């Protein structure tokens, strides 16, 4: 049942979109201050917008800013419907709240997709109330007034009020239950590249990341964890650590030994000086080769079917093509290592965290401390990269324990070495593919995905009865090509190596396999790989759209030098479609240079085009790192790599020319942060094949794969 609520009702209602829009959040305490003349009345029609008497507008961002300019594009949506003047707009970061803002989790390229309608409504609600307030003041009908550039205009007389001038009056009106949304044709902000609201702070050192938080009386902490997965502490000697200047204490916590000191340098030195006798556990006998052997063996056994179309047996007269693709574990490598500041007080707790999941941090802390969530404050700082790593709360549980014990605010810092050794890695995977051609058309496609399962590691009991982990076949089971007989299945091969969501999750591995193998089928059929794909994508217009756009812009089919090659790939993920053409040069000695990536994306209606472009550029670089480098290997049950000398990232001198083209679309917004990644590796691999005739079926590409 719908009802109109006054702003004093204090009741959370769901908007018609079911998105948890809150009406009437103004606090009685604040009302008293207003009445007493202590503060001026701010107009807060809902949790997202506050309009102040000084005519500034604060828009809440309840998603984490990690470089995707979400703190610019979310306010754009509200400001669009509100008819605000962009120069009035400021953004504020929401603290964690169990339900005020809906989910504050930032991941799955979902921030725009999942906020679009509710933020439009929030802006429109405020606009309608301001228009009403203006009309009331002029004593005219609402229909005679419009909102425009931060003002309410009485059209026939030309009289105006600023939003600020109407803030108080508007705050006394009931919120409309179903505000009118603008026709997208009339959008003024949406679809334009707006300067990033956080950009100025990012060029003068004032941007505040988790690492930069300093609170009075704060101590610093590092944690030494067992390098071997599943290992434990037997005993440790801290004499040498305690001698380090600035060390306050060392003690055992759940995940290792905490070293507490007066500054970061002290705890880093103290960590290095600790003398620990580890029980390395059973996994200490494992290495990458054994993991691979285990996966091969299990991969030949029983699999769980994810998709089955047609019949997969009747192909005996066909030409059969088989191949195996392999992808290693890899690491997130956010430039800002894991960290947070935690202050456990008597009955409350305050946390500053660069996190993608403020609410998970809040519930984790509440559970750990035995406190009510309302006593846990979580401030979300800027994130120095996220990429899925900061969907975990592990670095906060460390700090909770240290702060509880020391009774002080604690800044917990992971060194780069800690960050690499104790990531939740992108799962390694093996892909067994088989296809058949009958009269040069594809008759059969079989794809077996063999990989550790992220969900299966988190909640093994859920998968006991042979349940499918759908996520692991993302990008494999939704193969878009029109092939009559398709079988996609999955074999779960979990190990002690922690696995997690890494930019585009399983799409990164599955797209490499799909798009490499479809190229192999094109070759077997003797067809051009672009045309071959198009022929199989007749019923998938958005795949075709990006594929054609990328091919056309790249000049597909143009004449190339003898060391050069061009490769193409297309993939849909997170509600968007992306295609890429890579151009490479392969030298005689196995040197590989990526010359150019031409990319196209269809992510539906675009809010901030330059933001989408930047995300594509970013996904391409991130994807190139995992195509050319960025392998995590295991020796004696632990990660081999330790810092950027052996976990290398792409550098500026390896940066290809990158062009991004965005498909014009009025479809609902799709994701932008991840969809650009999956096509990168296969486009490059296919380009290498075009240049050398060598198929790349394993990442990262190594010089020996090229000669």
């Amino acid at each position, binding site marked *: 049942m719908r009802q109109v609520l006054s702003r004093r009702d204090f009741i959370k209602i769901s908007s018609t979109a079911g998105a948890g829009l809150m009406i009437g959040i103004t606090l009685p305490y604040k009302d008293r201050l207003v009445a007493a003349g202590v503060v001026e009345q701010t107009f807060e029609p809902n949790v997202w917008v506050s309009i102040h008497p000084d005519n500034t507008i604060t828009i809440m961002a309840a998603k984490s800013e990690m470089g995707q300019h979400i703190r610019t594009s979310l306010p754009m949506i509200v400001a669009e419907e509100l008819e605000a003047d962009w120069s009035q707009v400021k953004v504020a970061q929401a603290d964690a709240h169990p339900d005020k803002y809906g989910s504050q989790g930032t991941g799955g390229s979902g921030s725009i997709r999942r906020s679009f309608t509710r933020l439009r409504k929030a802006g429109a609600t405020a606009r309608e109330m301001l228009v009403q307030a203006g009309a009331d003041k002029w004593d005219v009908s609402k229909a005679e007034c419009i909102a425009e550039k931060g003002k309410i205009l009485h059209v026939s007389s030309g009289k105006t009020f600023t939003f600020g001038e109407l803030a108080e009056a508007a705050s006394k009106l009931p919120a409309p239950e179903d505000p009118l949304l603008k026709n997208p044709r009339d959008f003024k902000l949406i679809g334009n590249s707006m300067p*990033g609201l956080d950009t100025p702070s990012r*060029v003068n*050192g004032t941007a505040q990341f988790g690492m930069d938080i300093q609170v009075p009386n704060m101590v610093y902490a590092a944690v030494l964890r067992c390098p071997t997965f599943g290992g434990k502490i037997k005993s440790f000697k801290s004499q040498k650590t305690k001698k380090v200047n600035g060390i306050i204490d060392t003690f055992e916590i759940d995940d290792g030994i905490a070293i507490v000191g007066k500054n970061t340098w002290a705890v880093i030195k103290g960590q290095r000086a600790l003398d620990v006798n580890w029980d390395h556990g059973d996994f200490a006998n494992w290495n990458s080769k054994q993991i691979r052997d285990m996966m091969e063996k299990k991969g030949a056994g029983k699999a769980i079917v994810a998709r089955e179309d047609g019949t997969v047996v009747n192909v005996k007269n066909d030409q059969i093509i088989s191949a195996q693709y392999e992808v290693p574990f890899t690491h997130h490598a956010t430039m800002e290592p894991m960290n947070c500041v935690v202050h456990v007080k008597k009955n409350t707790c305050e946390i500053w965290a660069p996190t993608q999941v403020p609410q998970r941090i809040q519930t984790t802390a509440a559970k750990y401390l035995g406190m009510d969530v309302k006593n846990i404050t979580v401030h979300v700082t800027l994130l120095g990269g996220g990429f899925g790593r900061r969907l975990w709360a592990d670095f906060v549980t460390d700090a909770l324990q240290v702060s509880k014990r020391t009774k002080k605010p604690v800044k917990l*810092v992971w060194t780069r070495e800690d960050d690499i050794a104790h990531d939740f890695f992108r799962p390694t995977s093996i892909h067994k593919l088989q296809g058949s051609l009958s009269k040069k058309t594809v008759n059969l496609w079989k794809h077996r995905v063999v990989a550790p399962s992220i969900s299966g590691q988190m909640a093994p009991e859920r998968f006991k009865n042979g349940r499918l982990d759908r996520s692991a076949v993302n990008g494999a089971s939704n193969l878009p090509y029109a092939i009559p007989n398709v079988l996609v299945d999955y074999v779960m091969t979990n190990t002690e190596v922690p696995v997690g969501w890494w930019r585009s999750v399983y799409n990164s591995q599955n797209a490499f396999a799909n798009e490499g193998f479809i190229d192999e089928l094109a070759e077997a059929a003797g067809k051009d790989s672009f045309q071959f794909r198009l022929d199989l994508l007749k019923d998938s217009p958005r795949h075709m759209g990006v594929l054609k756009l990328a091919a056309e812009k790249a000049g597909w089919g143009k004449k190339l030098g003898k060391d050069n090659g061009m490769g193409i790939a297309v993939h849909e993920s997170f509600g968007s479609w992306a295609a890429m053409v890579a151009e490479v040069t392969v030298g005689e000695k196995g040197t590989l240079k990526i010359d150019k990536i031409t990319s196209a994306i269809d992510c539906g209606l675009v809010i901030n085009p330059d933001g989408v472009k930047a995300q594509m*550029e*970013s996904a391409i670089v991130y994807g190139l790192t995992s195509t050319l480098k960025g392998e995590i290997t295991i020796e004696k049950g632990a990660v081999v790599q330790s810092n950027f000398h052996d976990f290398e990232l792409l550098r500026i001198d390896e940066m290809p020319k990158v062009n991004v083209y965005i498909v014009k679309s009025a479809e609902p917004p799709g994701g932008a942060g991840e969809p650009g990644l999956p096509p990168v590796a296969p486009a490059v691999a296919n380009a290498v094949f075009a240049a050398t005739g060598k198929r790349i079926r394993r990442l990262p590409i190594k010089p020996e794969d090229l000669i």
Partner: protein
Amino acid sequence: MPKFTLYVNGKTHRLNVVADMPLLWVLRDELGYTGTKYGCGRGLCGACTIHVDGEATRACMTAVENLDGAEITTIESLSLDNSHPLQKAWIAEEAPQCGYCQSGQIMTAAALLKRNPNPDDADIDSAMKMNLCRCGTYGRVRKAIHRATEDNG
């Protein structure tokens, strides 16, 4: 504990810290200049780049004992109002993504432009290649440096 005198961004600081403390932690923990970032602590990423007597230097690899009396410049001194040509260019190109590496990128670029006011792509690549950016802003960093030189001249 030994005493050191540091000149940071034109201010004199007297410090009571251990001799081997890297400048990075002196700046961040002791003096509150948090614009200079920790990325690797081993001279491998460039996030901590500052200037010592005008030279781009890795603050994580430079112990305070070697800096007694040196002139240190951090991102905070380029200009807080973003009026420096590099800052203007960075903003115009929307170069930063998460921003974490950008202090280091800008400080390395500032040292490059001092040496070579008109770098071409190859000069930029060779000066900037030790500055890692996981967000992949390299294309825009290149463009921003070119733009800053145009702004200069």
